[in-house]
């Protein structure tokens, strides 16, 4: 996806929240939706099942207005987490400029996290996106749960963060770490602008 359009003076970034089922991807978006002034966001679209599981995607457009003379827009997506929905997940991943991996900090979900991460790699590979250079941020969500049930961010890093990308602890339900994560991924994505610009 062309990130910067110098002719029309637009910057558009597509950020996809990825992760195993029920890890909190949609929750992230809901929280952001609640905190962004109405003027700056579009309607949030959630294609979900009756049981509130993302069926296809959630979509939240954010308009940051004019920055350095460029109208800057972010498009946040989530994907369905269940293994079953891989085909649709791949569709949503197309054209992503950056990915937030929302991991479930619960100890018993570690395998799901790993599997989802592997699934991310293979989907990216199939889409022809360079896994090593795609901006990626890890969010270890549900850090608010009882200590006995969850793993520390450090342990999660050991298990999941082999690319040594920025990782943040979060409690999306109460909003902790949500904007920090968004900030982190935005910076990584926007930095790529300076790595070679074309007219």
């Amino acid at each position, binding site marked *: 996806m062309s990130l910067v359009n110098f002719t029309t003076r637009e910057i558009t970034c597509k950020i996809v929240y990825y992760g195993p*089922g*029920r890890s909190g991807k949609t929750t992230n978006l809901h929280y952001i939706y609640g905190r962004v002034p109405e003027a700056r966001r579009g309607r949030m*679209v959630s*294609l*979900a*099942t*009756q*049981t509130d*599981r993302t*069926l*296809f995607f959630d979509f939240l457009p954010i308009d940051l207005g004019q920055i350095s003379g460029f109208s800057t827009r972010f498009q946040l997506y989530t994907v*369905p987490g*269940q*293994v*079953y*929905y*891989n*085909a*649709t997940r791949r*569709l949503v991943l197309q054209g992503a400029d950056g990915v937030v991996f929302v991991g479930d900090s619960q100890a018993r979900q570690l395998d799901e996290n790993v599997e989802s991460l592997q699934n991310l790699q293979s989907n990216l590979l199939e889409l022809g996106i360079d896994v090593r250079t795609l901006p990626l941020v890890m969010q270890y969500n549900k850090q608010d749960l009882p200590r006995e049930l969850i793993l520390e961010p450090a342990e999660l890093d050991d298990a999941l963060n082999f690319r040594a990308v920025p990782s943040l602890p979060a409690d999306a339900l109460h909003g902790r770490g949500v904007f920090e994560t968004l900030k982190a991924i935005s910076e990584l994505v926007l930095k790529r602008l300076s790595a070679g610009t074309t007219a």
Partner: protein
Amino acid sequence: MTTRAVETWTLDPLKQFVGEAAARLVLLMTPAGQVLAQHGFARALDVMSAAALSSAIVASTTEIARQLGEPPFAALTHQGERHGIFLANAPTHQGMVVVLVVYDLDVSSIGLVQLFFEQLRTELHAASPKTGVPKQVLAADFERQLSDSLDTLFGR
């Protein structure tokens, strides 16, 4: 060509439809993409993809309609070069059933499929059990149930 069902009440209407409409592939699923019955698929993988994508299509079109204040799409058709695709809803006592039909253009036709789909719709509605609470799908079970359905469909 096997015809198999997870929900047994769908089996007979399905078989009949397949015979009369001369369909190549048929998939019956819930709006969440959970498979109820299938005909003609060789691999579980294909069923998964087809089910996930079909349910995504239905979700997308439903949302567009909703934003316009319209009722959901009744049916979607597509005519390719060699195949035709037909995607439609069939309400039953057990909830909405989404039906995906793929047919060879030199064997069947859209008219034929539409005609016998009406029949299928009626029969599914009639065959669906009125009693019994629709399965509550628990978070932990959802994934497993999806896989289980596939196992059933492919006799594993």
